[in-house]
């Protein structure tokens, strides 16, 4: 670089604004502007607190769908069969209520980044949004979610025909918590209304099973052997696909389901503290087998596997079984959707040693932004979308699996299911044991991702016992910090 000569300095006839002056003024102005703008963000959302009462209390008189006529609401959703089933029905809601609905879609991989930013920013940009039950444990404590209990209990705001109890109990419990360490689910406020859900079971290539004259396994040891027998790497075919990526989402489907069936738990409650139990004898034994299953009969790039990879392999005939969400494998059997469409069937998966069919669930629910300025309209939308009529319409006209209402499952869903062998039987076998098998806690995502990392470490050769001891120790520290 050439050295600039001093003669090249710009000349200025008037008083020169010194660089220090300039930087000082810019710093003061910039700092002030930034501080003024950021202070409201420190309020962590703009939600109502329990001291302020609920906006539901302001709704009085008889129930009327037209109570918020003329308003418009925005909803944030992720592209999903649930959302796609309801999209054509939104005009029915507008006709019923006079409320306009604008949908914004964000892909699943970035959905919670966007939602988190909005809620942390205290924005009421979206009045209603899709939320998974585990996210309530994180988004609820800062006051970002509206408690829907007062809305459910107010007959001026909720139709007599709504019948909240018709929603499966495990789902109602999954979306209710008091945010107290050690408290079970089912206590506290109702932070979302379950809208669609999935049980984690086994989907398999029935055509291939029939050709070989075999049936799905009923115990975990038989399941492992079956998966190994079905694996033929030379033909790019393997026994069972399940998630293995470095994410909390690796733990919650098949792994947590079978982990619970084998009698293991994630935490034990000791007073108001949680003690991680991922290193109990049962947990270590099961984890060893699970990782061995991944090695011997799982996808070769298991540590990168997400559910779309697993369901894709089932659909193109590479994987003979998948242990994941029933609703994620469901679309693969629809005509034209995959190579193996029409060849798939479902099974509850292996029972535990005591015959347990404990099954972990995922539910996409609808929650209300506590900073929303249009809460009545938002509640009417949630009530409509989770109501019997709209859910039945969604089931009849599209691929809405699984509906969260028993009446809709027994009615419209069974009528329209068609040729999905074992789907109903599997659902009915596990539904009474289907609930969130995790202990609710606010550090769920960090600690469950730690768990997935531990699985990967064991997969790559670390000793299961010592690795799970280390995991339990760090997770105990983290959840009680």
């Amino acid at each position: 670089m050439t050295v600039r000569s001093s003669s090249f300095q710009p000349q200025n006839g008037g008083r020169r604004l010194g660089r220090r002056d300039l930087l000082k003024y810019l710093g003061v102005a910039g700092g002030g502007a930034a501080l003024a703008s950021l202070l409201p963000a420190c309020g962590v959302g703009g939600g109502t607190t329990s001291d302020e009462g609920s906006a539901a209390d302001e709704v009085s008189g008889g129930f009327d769908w037209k109570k918020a006529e003329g308003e418009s609401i925005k909803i944030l959703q992720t592209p999903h069969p649930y959302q796609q089933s309801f999209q054509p029905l939104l005009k029915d809601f507008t006709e019923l209520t006079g409320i306009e609905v604008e949908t914004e879609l964000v892909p699943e991989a970035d959905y919670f980044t966007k939602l988190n930013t909005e809620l942390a920013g205290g924005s009421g940009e979206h009045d209603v949004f899709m939320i998974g039950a585990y996210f309530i444990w994180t988004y609820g404590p800062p006051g970002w979610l509206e408690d829907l209990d007062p809305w459910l209990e107010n007959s001026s705001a909720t139709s007599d025909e709504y019948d909240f109890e018709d929603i499966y109990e495990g789902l109602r419990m999954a979306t209710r918590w008091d945010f107290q360490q050690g408290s079970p689910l089912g206590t506290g406020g109702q932070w979302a209304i379950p809208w669609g859900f999935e049980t984690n079971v086994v989907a398999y290539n029935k055509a291939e099973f029939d050709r070989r004259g075999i049936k799905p396994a009923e115990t975990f040891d038989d399941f492992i052997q079956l998966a190994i027998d079905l694996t033929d790497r030379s033909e790019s075919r393997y026994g069972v696909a399940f998630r293995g990526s470095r994410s909390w989402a690796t733990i919650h489907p098949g792994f947590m389901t079978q982990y619970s069936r084998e009698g293991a738990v994630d935490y034990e409650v000791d007073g108001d503290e949680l003690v991680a139990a991922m290193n109990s004898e049962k947990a270590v034994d099961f984890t060893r087998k699970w990782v061995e299953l991944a090695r011997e009969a799982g996808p070769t790039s298991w540590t990168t596997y997400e559910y779309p990879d697993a369901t894709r392999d089932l659909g193109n005939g590479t994987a003979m079984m998948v242990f994941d969400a029933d609703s994620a494998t469901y679309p693969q059997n629809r005509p034209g959707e995959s190579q193996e469409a029409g060849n798939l069937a479902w099974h509850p998966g292996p029972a535990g040693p005591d015959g347990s069919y404990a099954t972990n669930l995922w539910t996409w629910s609808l929650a209300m932004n506590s900073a929303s300025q249009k809460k009545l309209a938002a509640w009417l939308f949630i009530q409509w979308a989770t109501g019997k009529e709209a859910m039945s319409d969604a089931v009849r006209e599209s691929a809405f699996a699984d509906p969260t209402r028993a009446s809709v499952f027994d009615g419209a869903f069974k009528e329209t299911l068609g040729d999905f062998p074992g789907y109903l039987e599997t659902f009915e076998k596990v539904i009474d044991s289907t609930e969130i098998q995790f202990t609710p806690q606010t550090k769920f995502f960090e600690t469950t991702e730690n768990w997935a990392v531990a699985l990967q470490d064991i997969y790559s050769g670390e000793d299961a016992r010592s690795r799970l001891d280390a995991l339990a120790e760090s997770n105990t520290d983290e959840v009680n910090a």
Partner: protein
Amino acid sequence: MSTELLPGRRRFTLTSVLADLALLAWFTFALFPILWMVLLALKTSAEQTSTYFAFSPTLENFGTVLSARGTELTSVDFTSTLITSVVSCVGAVLVSLIIGVPAAYAAGRWKYRGSNDVMFTILSFRFAPELMVVVPLFVIYHQIGLFDTRVGLIWVLQLVTMPLVVWILRSYFQDLPEDLEQAALLDGYTRRRTFLTVALPLVRPGIAAAALLAFIFAWNNYVFALILTGNEANTVTVAITKFLGGGGQAYYNLTAAAAVIAALPPLILALTIQRYLVRGLSFGAVKA
């Protein structure tokens, strides 16, 4: 027979053939993701994960992406997201050039205590994680009404385009002999006229290169558009991902078709000003 190598003829030796083969292999490897994307865009849903190269090609996916069906799937009109991307990226580059070119000239010509710190601060906008600053930006944008607007996008994209323009052009201005400008000043030119009529024309290839690079980086930006826009000002990069589907229903073929369409504007632009780009990027490459 003479073994003399005539002009235009190549000598085929084992080394040169191996070098060509290696080059061809690298070319194939480098372009394979693009080829795969194009192939995927031509497949039906049933064939998207079950076939490699043998399939029944269809243009239906492109039609779906641009049609009402595409809008129904994603809640945004893909064509309008393309227009938003073009408007916001062109706008962002223009603003960066208007402010950044004089800034680069000043940075290249004047040294003062802390000038390197200022330049480093500008550069830090490029490597600071976008997610780190996006929450306060989200709050500010909501407060001042810039959320979900094209103007808001143009403004925030300055974090992407401005450092590129200033840093690239500063090196061009530094490479210009000062004598030219000093001669102009001796002839009575003002500083502004010297900049506009002497320095600026000489760095045109650099401006073209910087503008194109800034445009491409702005075009590819995802996080700011994801967080700071809604349906009104969604850009094409966000719109592409909305075709991915979810819940076990994946539309890789539609996503690939959308990506192919989205890649066309920067590709056309790059080919159009390729001459300037090559010259611009190689300019100053051997500077000490």
